[in-house]
């Protein structure tokens, strides 16, 4: 899937980066879960574990 579309061919064709199966699943899950937020419905982002809460 080329990110650029035009009336001629560009020198370098840039394809949309393919997400891994897990990434696609995570994206899908985030979207579905975010739609239901409220009360006990919470969505947690999977970030790095950060014990001392420093970036």
């Amino acid at each position, binding site marked *: 899937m080329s990110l*650029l*579309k*035009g009336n001629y061919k*560009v020198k*370098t064709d840039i394809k*949309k980066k393919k997400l891994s199966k897990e990434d696609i699943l995570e994206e899908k899950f985030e979207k579905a879960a975010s739609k239901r937020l409220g009360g006990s419905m919470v969505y947690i982002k999977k970030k790095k574990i950060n014990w001392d809460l420093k970036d």
Partner: protein
Amino acid sequence: MAKVLMINPMVREEDDPKHVPMGMAQLAAIAIKKGHQIQIYDHNAWRADDEQIKEVILSDNWDLIGIGGITTAYASIKKIAKMARKILPGVTISLGGGVLTSLPKEIMKWLPEIDFGFIGESYVTFPEVLEMIDAGKSDWHKINGTISRLEGGELYFSPKRELIDNLDALPYPAYDLFPVEEVYFKNSAMMYSEAGMLATRRLDINASIGCSLICRFCYHLGIAGDMRYKKDAKGKIVNVEFDQPKNYTRTIRYNSPEYVVQLAKYVEKKYNANYLYFLDENLMTMDVFSRRTWLKEICKLWKENDLVPKKRKDGTWKGLYWSGTSHATLCEPEILKTMGEHGCAHLVYGYEAFDDRILKLMGKGSTRKTNIRSFFWTLEAGIRPIPNQIIGFPTEDFDSLKMQMKAWDDLGVMVKPHFATPYPGSEWFTVYRKKIEEQYKGQGKKLGLSDDLEAFILDLGDATRVSAVISKNFNAVELIGLREMMVHRQYEKIDQYEQEWRKKHKIPEGQPSTLCGQDNKEKNLEIKAAAK
């Protein structure tokens, strides 16, 4: 031949991309027709990461990078313009669309990366710029409808670009240059009707430009005759102006029914589309202007061209369902019925409120009565009316909020209203600009921006989120709380809060719940005006 990279910035990040940017699609078609080399990176559709945006920018030797979009795309535009300038220091970068048009001087100040801007309609300006590139020149200031930087850095407005007369002269939008199959068709569904929900191959068209009404919150992108050029005593253009109290201008233009239906037929055939969304600001304005012939003729030709949807056994259909925007006072039962019979599935109505006092001040030309009447006419015609609702009008009070809730109950409307938002280009923005800047005081500096107004622009998104408040009676916290209770129909809780509010503002029971004007003079005048 000029080599151009057009970039559609990201808008409404929280939702899936649903609309091919029409202006850009038309401009690309015009440029291609003139023989130029065009590539489009639709960032709103792809939403690729920064690494990939870099690759896109580096993928060819561009004569011009053209970015454009609506005001709420500003954050994305800013990011892309900065990236492009960093990666390609010598490339010419331009910006067009509603975002630049409403605040040309400010945007050029905030984004030094932009070499020049397209103000308003660009059907002629854009190809003229490409012609200039072909001639090896970069005298953007010599092209009408631009804002550019002179040698000393001074901003320069070239003369106003006049609007084209004949919209039928426009080539069909270059849908092919957008990821229609890869992205847009997947997001075809429009949750406003059964047909909309089942749409699998929806595309948009735009069949008219303009709106005859003067809603105080609305902006018409400077392409609807709504923009005027302001000159100083010496005749030098110093800025652009939009709706202002007692100063409104409009130009109404529409495609011929033949053009509209031929385009619909082309979309159906070429893309195997099954749904068409009319982006037009207000289809009924055009119907009134054409003395009630336009929509009728479109429906007639829809049928003659075999576009009226025919259901198949499996629930799919042949033909095109369609939808668009109507108006409470300008619509009539007869035309609605015809539209319903020809595949119109939903019509958006900007009812906004149900209190005549509020409606009158809004300039919408509608009343509670016409709102309710059009709602039932539309339902009767077999079309779903989709009412937009707003709270937080300048003189909104407890009475008007309760009237709104009552109407939702009466009509069976489930809605989460927008907050009244002064988008640039609207009369509200012009009138309340100082008030807006006050609300963002210090934010510019804090966020490392040029000024506080830029902070406001960056904060703008969907009006379902609160940004600058223009209500005289309620602050942001109150509006959010009241909306929540309205949505859940908590009448008692609102009554309770009204008591607290009255105590706080020393307004006894029985008097209008408003802080507008001493002795409620302002409100009484409004009531009188509405009664007239």
